Structures are given as structure tokens and as C-alpha cells.
């Protein structure tokens, strides 16, 4: 199982995230997981096993992806996490050819990492089509796709880029159809709508059955074995002998059908991973999916203050720095070019990329998010302050000079008040951008409405996505409205320099 796309850059975040905690902590077993249901479920399973021995356990849940979680265990920040043999061999250890368990164990051993036996199921890579759809009627195996360049396959970015992903698969079977890389959660939606014909799937994926998909056979055994295992730091066996023994005893006890059922209960029935493990094996869904309204209220209550706080603090910081920079840009010919250019360039960095650059420097959580939001907020404030001042008629400026106002008095009593509406327009843009951009805070672990959006994407749950997206949109409208009201007040006061 190789889901969860994360660049190597993000791997560094995990290190930063866990360094402090891991070192300072009293003995506790740290169990990591990746950002998708099955990983969360396995981590919870291990947690329960360890806790049953009286061991203190801390979960580091939903770390960005394979690269992040592996970096975390490699550095000692995490003691144990669930993974798949195929993923470990190719994506993590970059072993060539068809590495077997022994080869993987050797490579891990060199890093002081050990493997449990297989948990009892594998979650292999697969391609699937919709059962009974005429376009893909005769397609049973991956080889059948070779003669169908007209079909569209929806695959994850990770599969699209990895040599043992689509390129290798296409080479092995002589496929000519064009893959379209998309978010995995969206791909299921796309195949249901008929936008794509073939979808990347995983053999324990709950949606295979629910969406009526047919898994194509892999006759040439292109995909390696993806046996589920726990990776752990070998020294953890000495530190937590009882817990590790209990976890290792899980091997061979978890079969595919149980995993598929748990996955379905989380992703389709809206249970938490913990609740899914507790749910009766055969019974009806143990919990009903919460309605949009109750989810929305929950998100507003739990994430609203965080989101609003991020926006308020970052915009205030942008204003405190941006307004003086705008003034300097207007007053100093020498600084104007560099200031306006720098503010503009910063704006072109994608927000997620900026966050990834900041995290190795500032750690994970609120601080890098605030800095990113602050940086994005600068440009509108700097440019509008500069423009607002530059637009003041020369006659007014000169009247102030000849009246005998000092530089400072002109700025505070005449120029800034005259530029106030332009500055407010910049603040407004900055704040609205911050409301939207703050949704990436979830990726850095800072919370906010983005949390719900990201969770919803991971669980392929539109209701959860909406419960984050709707408050974001409403907040953006509210913030925009508040600044418009402020502008009206300024206009009434007569501060119009336009």
C-alpha cells in the first residue's frame, strides 16, 4: 500500500515535530500512523495491544505520509508504525528488483529497525473498473487494457510518479492509455460519474464493494506483495518488552475481510477508527453518519477560534510590517523597487510549498502557519499603502509642507489619513486571503477549518469536506463585509483621496 503522497521535504517536518517530545518524555511507546484510515486502524490496534500490558502509549496520528512517518521512526521520534512490505521495499528503502522479506529486513536492520510478521492481510495495489459498465465490459485483467488506448485511468500522484507505479506497469503490460493523476478520494467520485474508466484501488479498500468495482487481475504479478506489518525500532523490544510481545502476537490475526469492514465503517459509515474496532463484527453500522449541520456546528465550535485566531494574528502582523514597508516604498526611491518586488515574489510561492520550506526552520504547528499567512498578507498591504500614498494629489502634499508640518506630522495627520481607504482595501484583501490560506494550516498540524477539509479528503467524505469549506467561505464573506463597512465609515468621514 503506497497511498499518501508526500515529498521528501515534508519528511523533515516529522523530525522536527517529534524531536523535542521524544527526548523529554517519560518512557512511553510512540506509535505512528499515516494519514489514511487503514493506517489509523492498525495503529489503534497496536495501541490497544500495548496498553493492555500497562504500557504508556502516545499516538502520533496521521503523519503526512510514508516519507514523513519513516523519517520519524528512523530518527527515533516514533517507535512503531504500520506499513506494507511492498511500500517498504520500493518507496522507502529503494531496493531494486523484487525484494523479498529477508532483503527488506536486512535493509531495515542496518538502521536499527525491525519487522513483525505479517498481520494476516495484504493490501495490494490494484486497478479496478465499474462492474456492468458497457465501456469496460470485456476487461477482466490489466492486460486487457493494452488494446484500449481510449480509456482514462485515474491514479494517485504517487503512483503516477514512481517507477514501480504507472510507468513500470505500463511497460510490463504495454499499456497506452493515458493516466490522469488526481487525489485518490476524488478518483472514486470520478469513476462513479464516468469521468474516468479505470481507477487505482487497494485490495482492502471498502469502496471496491460499495461502489461495485471489479478488481483487474495482475496476471504478470507486476505489483509486489503488500503484506501489512508493523515496523518498530529494534531497541523498543528492550524498552517495552511486554508491549512489543503483545503487538507481535497480533501477527496472523487480522484478515482482509475484517480490515475491509473496518475501513467501510470509518469511510462509509462515519465511525472513528476507535469506534470501528469496537463495533460488532456482523451487526448493522454501529454509528450513524453525523448530518452536515451537526458536523458543521462541531467544526465551528472546535476549529472556529483557531481559524479566526490564525487570521487575526497573521493579518495584524502583516499590517504592522506591511504598512511601514508601504510607507518606505513610497518615500524612498531606492527602496521602492526592492520592497515591491520582494512582496510580489513571495506571493507567487504556493502556500503548501512555503509551509514545507518553513517547517524545517520553525517546526510544526501554529508558528510556521502564522509565518506563511503573514508573508502572504504582506503584498496587498504593502502595495495598497504605497499606492494610497502615491495617489495623494501633489497639491495637498505641498500645502502641508508650506503650512510648516514636519515630515512626521505630514505622514500622521495628512498622508496616512488620506491613504486610509486604500490601506483598508489592502487589509481586506489580505484578511480574505488569510481566511482561505489558513486552511493549509491543517497540513502543518495547526488546526483550523482546513482540518475538516483534509480529513474529509482522506476519508472521501463530502459532508466532512463541506463542514470545513462552508465555515471558511462564510468567514471570508464576513471578513470582507467587515472591511467594507469600515471603508464606508471612512468614506463618510471624508477620507477619500480618490
Amino acid at each position: 500500500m503506497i497511498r499518501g503522497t508526500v515529498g521528501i521535504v515534508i519528511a523533515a517536518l516529522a523530525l522536527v515535530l517529534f524531536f523535542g517530545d521524544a527526548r523529554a518524555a517519560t518512557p512511553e511507546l510512540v506509535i505512528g500512523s499515516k494519514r489514511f484510515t487503514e493506517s489509523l486502524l492498525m495503529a489503534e490496534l497496536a495501541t490497544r495491544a500495548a496498553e493492555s500490558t500497562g504500557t504508556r502509549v502516545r499516538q502520533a496520528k496521521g503523519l503526512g505520509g510514508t516519507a514523513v512517518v519513516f523519517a520519524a521512526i528512523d530518527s527515533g521520534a516514533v517507535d512503531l508504525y504500520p506499513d506494507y512490505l511492498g511500500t517498504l521495499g520500493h518507496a522507502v528503502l529503494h531496493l531494486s528488483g523484487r525484494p523479498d522479506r529477508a532483503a527488506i529486513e536486512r535493509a531495515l536492520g542496518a538502521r536499527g529497525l525491525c519487522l513483525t510478521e505479517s498481520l494476516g492481510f495484504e493490501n495490494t495495489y490494484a486497478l479496478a473498473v465499474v462492474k456492468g459498465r458497457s465501456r469496460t465490459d470485456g476487461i477482466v485483467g490489466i492486460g486487457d487494457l493494452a488494446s484500449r488506448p481510449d480509456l482514462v485511468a485515474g491514479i494517485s500522484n504517487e503512483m503516477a510518479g514512481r517507477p514501480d507505479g504507472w510507468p513500470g506497469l505500463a511497460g510490463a503490460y504495454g499499456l497506452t492509455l493515458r493516466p490522469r493523476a488526481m487525489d485518490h478520494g476524488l478518483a472514486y467520485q470520478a469513476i462513479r460519474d464516468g469521468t474516468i474508466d479505470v481507477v487505482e484501488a487497494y485490495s482492502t479498500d471498502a469502496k471496491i464493494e460499495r461502489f461495485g468495482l471489479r478488481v483487474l487481475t495482475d496476471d504478470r504479478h507486476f505489483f509486489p506483495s503488500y503484506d501489512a506489518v508493523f515496523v518498530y525500532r529494534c531497541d523498543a523490544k528492550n524498552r517495552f518488552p511486554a508491549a512489543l510481545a503483545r503487538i507481535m502476537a497480533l501477527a496472523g490475526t487480522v484478515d482482509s475481510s475484517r480490515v475491509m469492514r473496518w475501513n467501510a465503517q470509518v469511510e462509509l459509515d462515519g465511525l472513528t477508527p476507535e469506534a470501528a474496532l469496537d463495533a460488532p463484527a456482523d451487526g448493522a453500522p454501529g454509528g450513524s453518519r453525523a448530518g452536515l449541520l451537526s458536523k458543521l456546528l462541531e467544526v465551528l465550535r472546535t476549529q472556529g477560534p483557531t481559524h479566526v485566531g490564525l487570521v487575526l494574528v497573521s493579518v495584524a502582523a502583516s499590517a504592522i510590517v506591511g504598512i511601514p514597508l508601504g510607507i518606505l516604498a513610497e518615500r524612498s526611491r531606492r527602496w521602492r523597487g526592492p520592497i515591491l518586488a520582494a512582496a510580489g515574489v513571495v506571493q507567487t510561492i504556493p502556500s503548501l510549498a512555503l509551509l514545507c520550506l518553513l517547517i524545517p526552520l520553525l517546526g510544526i504547528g501554529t508558528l510556521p502557519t502564522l509565518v506563511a499567512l503573514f508573508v502572504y498578507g504582506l503584498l496587498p498591504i504593502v502595495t495598497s499603502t504605497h499606492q494610497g500614498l502615491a495617489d495623494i494629489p501633489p497639491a495637498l502634499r505641498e500645502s502641508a509642507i508650506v503650512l510648516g508640518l514636519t515630515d512626521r506630522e505630514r505622514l500622521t495627520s495628512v498622508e496616512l489619513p488620506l491613504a486610509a481607504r486604500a490601506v483598508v482595501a489592502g487589509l481586506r484583501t489580505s484578511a480574505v486571503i488569510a481566511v482561505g490560506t489558513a486552511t493549509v494550516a491543517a497540513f502543518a498540524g495547526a488546526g483550523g477549518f482546513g482540518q475538516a477539509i483534509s480529513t474529509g479528503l482522506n476519508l472521501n467524505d463530502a459532508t466532512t469536506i463541506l463542514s470545513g469549506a462552508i465555515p471558511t467561505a462564510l468567514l471570508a464573506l464576513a471578513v470582507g463585509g467587515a472591511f467594507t463597512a469600515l471603508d464606508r465609515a471612512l468614506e463618510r468621514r471624508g477620507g477619500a483621496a480618490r
Partner: protein
Amino acid sequence: MIAVREVSKRFGTSAALDGVTLHVSLGRSLALIGPSGSGKSTVLRLITGLEWPDHGRVEVSGEPVTPSTVAGIRERLGYLIQDGGLFPHLSCRRNVTLVAELRNMDPAATAYRVEELADLVRLGPVLLDRLPRELSGGQRQRVALMRALFRDPPVLLLDEPFGALDPVVRREVGDELFALLRRLEKTVLLVTHDVAEAAALTDEIAVLRGGAILQTGTVHALRTAPADPFVTQFFAAHRNLGAADSQAVH
């Protein structure tokens, strides 16, 4: 009171002023007239220290205008420009009192002075609490005059002060303003492109063209003994106003 001596000023490659010399004695008024681009406003900008001469010097009451003296000199200058240059975000009253406030002048004294000035320019005190844009052009110029006169400066520099007003108001405000300035014994330098206005309001006229002064004298002297064909031409264009002007001058 105001002396401009052999002043030259270039902007880039074009000469704005070329060896200009002017005098305005205490309590007298001089109009600088000439077509647009002749350098009229540049003379005022040199006196107020908004520009510095390339050659020659500018003096106000005997003191040369330099970067180190200009702050003190500005206290002795009232400056009135087209459409007043009032700050649109401040009430008319605060436009007048802004400097006093910034200098922490006694509020009671300030209020008294405002009342006095409003009386002088014949502006209803109610209007003072409005924003400039809520007043007519003529009323705005009265407020701007109050602001220029607030510190009771001996010198008034007027740059096309009636340019934005319609002709009827323009005449009325102009006559009233100069009557007032004469009564207050101010030294006045008026920049205008309007010969009639210059002739009606000031003691002397200097005709400027291409950054050089062609002739300085009373309206009578300029009309009867023009030193340059351009002066003749300039006055000829305004001949129909001659009779009315002569009345106003005498």
C-alpha cells in the same frame, strides 16, 4: 519684502526660469502673468522652498531662502492655491487649526482666532464644521484663506487662487480678498494667467514668457509703453476688459 535675484531653474533639459529678478515691497502687490508654462508657478515654488534655484537667490524679508532657513520663512508665508488645497478628511475648522493643534497652541486662543478669521472672510461659523467637499468652491477658498492667514503672515502667495471658481464668484471673491489683504497690509504675490484679474487686483504686473520676465510695471505702463510685442499681444487679447480694469485700479 520678497526679492528674487537672477534666479535660474532647469527641470531636466528645459529651462523653467532664466535669470528672473523680481521685487515686491512691503505691503505692495505684484501679479505674475503669462501663458501656461511660462514659469509663473515655479517662482512661487522657489519662494516656498518646494524647489531650489540652480542659480541666483530668493529672499523673504531680507533672509535668503535655504534648506536651513525655510522652516522659519514658511511661518511668515501664507500660501493659497487653486481650489484651496484643503485636506478633505478634516473639517474646515480643523483645516484651519491643524498647525495650531500640532504646536499645542492654547485651544481658547485658537478658537478665538478662528472666529476672528471667519468674521474677516465673512464665512458662517456653521460651515466651519463641515467637510470641505460640503462647501461651494467660493466658500472653500475662504476657508483656505483663513488657513493661510491663521498665523498672520506678512506675505501672501496666491497661485491661481480663483482658477477653480466660476466667473461671477471669481470676481466677487477676488475683489473682496484683495480689499481685505490691502486692509491687512499684506505683501502679495499673485500668479495668474488672467490679465484682467491681475490688472484689477494688484499694484504692479510682471509679464513672464519662456522663463524670462519681459516687463514689469503698472498696468498703465505696460499698456502704454509695452517693452515687447508679446506684452502688446497679451494685453490686446484682453482689451475688452480694459475699461472695467481701469476703474478697479483707480
